[in-house]
């Protein structure tokens, strides 16, 4: 203990020795403060959300814990959030089923089957711009194009397609990066064995790019999981789970939408439910991100 104290004193003495030492020390402190400010929002949000919603998700009383996810809201919204939980899962599954193949095969075509030039530049530019478009604009587009123009109406189909549009730029670009990172010589080795281009792409290139590809997919899923704006005009809302693909039976609730609806509701007991939902959603997104992280770390080990 005294050793540490002595070295601290020695350090402080050296700091005050000269102007240059002091400035060096000051800059260190400055950077430390900056990093505290940078990371504090995450912890503040977590604390705020958990302080109100923690027992909704982890408690064991009536309507808490697992019951929170397995009961419908019911009369006066006094029950759980099964409608929103199931709705979000269904929306994500459908959005992924449409968005992931489209973006992966699009990236394969652009990266493996075209040469650099105008076509490729346009696709890359378009998807970069698409990635920067605010989500509310996707919502408005989903409403105007899918709900209105294509007469899909609000519901699970229009909602998940809007989310799929949002996933495309992220997945397309990360897949492209993953494909580019595959050494050319792997493709050549396959072709030199008499493989066709498609066989090479499917069995070798995509396989080698898989860890990078799955990382992009999971990040995109994590991102759209928490989106409210695209769903406001497209998915409708429901106190139950969708039973049909079109019409009012297809309206679907989602966790972000439910958070927004409950928080803006004057009934006091909905605050805890809103924060519980928010905590659950954060945990879901975090889990997806952690999985993406673990896989992306394996990339370097698997490639040559």
């Amino acid at each position: 203990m005294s050793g540490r104290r002595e070295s601290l004193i020695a350090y402080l003495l050296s700091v005050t020795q000269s102007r240059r030492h002091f400035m060096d020390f000051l800059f260190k402190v400055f950077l430390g403060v900056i990093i505290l400010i940078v990371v504090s929002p995450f912890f503040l949000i977590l604390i705020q959300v958990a302080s109100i919603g923690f027992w909704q998700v982890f408690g064991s009383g009536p309507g808490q814990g697992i019951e929170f996810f397995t009961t419908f809201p019911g009369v006066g919204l006094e029950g759980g959030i099964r409608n929103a939980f199931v709705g979000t899962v269904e929306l994500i599954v459908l959005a992924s089923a449409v968005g992931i193949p489209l973006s992966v095969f699009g990236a394969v075509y652009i990266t493996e089957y075209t040469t650099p030039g105008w076509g490729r530049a346009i696709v890359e530019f378009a998807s970069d711009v698409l990635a920067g478009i605010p989500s509310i604009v996707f919502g408005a587009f989903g409403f105007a194009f899918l709900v209105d123009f294509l007469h899909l109406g609000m519901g699970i189909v229009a909602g998940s397609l809007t989310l799929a549009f949002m996933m495309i730029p992220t997945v397309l670009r990360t897949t492209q990066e993953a494909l580019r990172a595959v050494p050319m010589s792997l493709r050549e080795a396959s072709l030199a064995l008499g493989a066709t281009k498609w066989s090479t792409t499917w069995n070798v290139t995509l396989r080698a790019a898989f860890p990078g590809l799955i990382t992009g997919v999971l990040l995109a899923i994590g991102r759209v999981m928490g989106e409210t704006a695209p769903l406001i005009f497209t998915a409708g809302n429901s106190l139950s789970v969708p039973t049909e693909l079109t019409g009012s039976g297809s309206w679907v609730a989602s966790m972000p939408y439910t958070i927004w609806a409950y928080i803006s509701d004057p009934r006091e007991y909905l605050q805890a439910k809103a924060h519980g939902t928010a905590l659950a959603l954060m945990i879901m997104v975090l889990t997806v991100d952690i999985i993406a992280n673990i896989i992306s770390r394996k990339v370097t080990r698997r490639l040559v």
Partner: protein
Amino acid sequence: MTEFKHHIEVHNLSTWFGKFAVLKDISCYFEDNTVTAVMGPSGCGKSTLLRSLNRLNDLVPTFRREGEVRFRGQDIYETGYSVYDLRKQIGMVFQRPNPFPMSIRDNIEYGPRLHGIKDDDELEKIVETSLKKAALWDEVKDDLEKPAPNLSGGQQQRLCIARALSVDPPVLLADEPVSALDPISAAKIEELIVELKKDYTIIMVTHNVQQAFRVSDQAAFLYLGELIEFDKTERILEAPADERTEAFITGRIG
């Protein structure tokens, strides 16, 4: 069946990448069951010549060629010639080991599977014979399910040789196959190449004169895209006919 003297013959081959002429009017043939070394300083077109033989240059959009490459008497650049069948007949080993990110077994089975072999026993036999030919069997026979990229560099390169042999090609191309390896692994692979020439026609690019001397029977010396000399390796190395060859052998250019 077309008459032919050698598996691979090159007739007046010139190639360009864009406007840049890489090979200039090259004619040579590769004697069966021998090792031919293609020598020359960096950038002389050695690799381009090698890659013209299995049409791997076709991957480069700006690639253009004139002249013929005949495999078993047939021009491989002829319209309608199947490049996939050609590449099944001409195996290739690359400068850097490039195993697929799969298990050792899957690496070997990849080629045969492509060409329609599905029978497990047959595949099993191919894995064993290919690895034995590449002198790798004893080291990996208990680890066939392990990922190939975990092997050492030298082992990876022998795996790549085994992979190339898995579809039983009569001709094997090797593009500086040992230049990325440590001396001990390199020596092993050189020995292996000498061993393999009993059954295969081997064409090996190298910029290492000693290696060409140790391994090859005939040699081609390329300089700035031209074929300067083409003869028995011993003859070229002991009594170079051209001063550029001599300069390369003695290390003045390279």
